[in-house]
């Protein structure tokens, strides 16, 4: 527990009668991919929202690199090194890929109340943004507006934006959603190269990707973690098979 980068301790969240998060405790260690799986309605999105800061938990605590972040805003958490991607791409459509990524590098360099220097020739923004694009093999699309990208490319831009933050933790919310088998395999490869740089908390429906990528898997059902272990243990767990894998 001590060396974990991200720790969730006894998180609870209730919407009226619905307990969306039930005493969730889990952690993310350096160099690992920790996958979070669960059937629809298990409370994965609610949990992600609490980690990212758009929802406040009713009780429990979240620590990022030893620092309590439970009551911080989305922007504050991002500045502390929490990078995330969205289930449904959340990018500025009319802007180019590069501009979308540059916003993240800009935030890294302190406040944005700088009114004079043009960003389009600011090397301190361009260099890291270009590097993040290179990591996601998007260099050739840098000057293309996001609105002209394919679905798969958008997913890559999402990850590049998160990477440009030089995060301590990556929170990826169904990065494979809507990708075909080919795109999915490709993104899986890209993520595999990342995991030793930055630990990833991965919420994913694509079981092939999860079993291939994840070092540890937690299974969320009805808001609570019902099982926890490596791929083999999860595959063998009868409770999980019943609740989720469907046999």
């Amino acid at each position, binding site marked *: 527990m001590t060396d974990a980068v991200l720790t969730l301790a006894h998180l609870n969240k209730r919407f009226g009668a619905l307990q969306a998060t039930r005493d969730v405790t889990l952690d993310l260690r350096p160099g690992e991919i920790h996958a979070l799986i669960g059937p629809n309605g298990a409370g994965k999105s609610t949990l992600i929202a609490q980690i*990212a800061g758009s929802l406040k938990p009713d009780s429990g605590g979240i620590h990022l690199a030893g620092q309590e972040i439970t009551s911080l*805003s*989305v*922007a*504050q958490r*991002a*500045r502390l090194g929490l990078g*995330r991607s*969205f289930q449904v791409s*959340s*990018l*500025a*459509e*009319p*802007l*180019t890929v590069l*501009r*979308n990524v*540059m*916003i*993240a590098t*800009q*935030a*890294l360099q302190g406040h*944005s*109340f*700088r*009114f*004079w*220097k*043009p*960003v*389009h020739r*600011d090397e301190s*923004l361009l260099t890291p943004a270009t590097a993040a694009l290179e990591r996601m093999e998007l260099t*050739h*699309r840098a000057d293309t*507006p996001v609105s*002209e990208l*394919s679905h*798969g*490319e958008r997913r*890559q831009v999402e990850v590049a*934006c*998160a990477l440009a*933050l030089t995060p301590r933790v990556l929170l990826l919310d169904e990065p494979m959603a809507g990708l075909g088998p*080919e*795109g999915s395999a*490709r993104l899986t490869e890209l993520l595999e190269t990342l995991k030793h740089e930055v630990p990833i908390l991965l919420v994913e429906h694509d079981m092939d990707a999860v079993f291939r990528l994840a070092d540890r898997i937690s299974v969320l059902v009805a808001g609570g973690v019902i099982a926890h272990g490596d791929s083999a243990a999860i595959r063998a767990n009868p409770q999980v098979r019943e609740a989720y894998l469907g046999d």
Partner: protein
Amino acid sequence: MIKSTTPSLAPRRVPTPAASWHDRKHLVQIGLLAVLLLAPLSAYLLGHVYYVNLASRLTLIAMAAVGLNLAIGYGGMVSFGHAAYFGLGGYVAGISAYHAFDFTPVIGWPIVIPGSDSMLAIWLATMLVCGLLALVIGTVSLRTSGVYFIMITLAFAQMVYYFANSWPTYGGEDGLPIYLRNSLPMVDTQDPLTFFLICFGGLVMSLALTSRIMKSRFGAALTMARLNETRLATAGIAPYPIRLVAFVISAMITGLAGALYADLNGFVSPTMLSWHMSGELMVIVILGGVGRLYGPLAGAILFVMMETLLGGLTEYWKLFLGLVLLLVVLFAKHGVMGWLAGRERP
């Protein structure tokens, strides 16, 4: 393969004219400024002072709209209350001149602030006062968005309007005259052409400032706040302070235009604060092209020309303004600037 081989289903824009569109935009911008500069110059030489003053009026309305465009067009904050800053700027000029004329202080206690007929002092005071008002109004209003933001900015502006209307010290609903136009060192502000050039300078400065700001980091953050605030927050930049600062700068520009406007007319009244004024500024921004740098100028030229030409024929000229606005909204979403200079490139 996700690579570039993916065919784009949307019809691709023809690649070659990209550079020339850019050039065309600059030509249109320079053209608009040249017309605005040369028209009153020739009118002055021909002895038609009326047209010089008309050009000053046009310039100041355009400048006020440049301020509003920063909020609406670049920041996505549809303020229906910018008359508050326009009028307040006017009142700063009027009240300051009134006290300078009377040799009484504007504020006598606890600190003494004397009146002044110096434009420089008035401009500084205008920026300060309008900035403060916008800070207060923005702090509250920016907690809402959409229709609520429109209504709350309108409500605040109406409060300022009714306050000015019922405050007898400065003329109440009758307004406040400025007997002698405020002064600048070494410049004869009484001269219509000189005054026009001051207004023109103000417009060019506010255009240059907007352009520069929007290319900076602040501009990048403001653009992202408009397009996708979740993305901005996820990147680690809180959208609210960015919007608030843009709102304050926007109000300052509109306020400065208002201070000059009162000097142009030698008169300031609650009319400058009324919601009609807010609406007019909004119409000008939309006519010219929302979020286009020179949109407010193009819109103001169209607006003032219609007002002058059609207004001479019929007092119902706004009927035609309405028709034009309808046409622009339906068929030319990028306004006059979109029509003249093409679409803005990303």
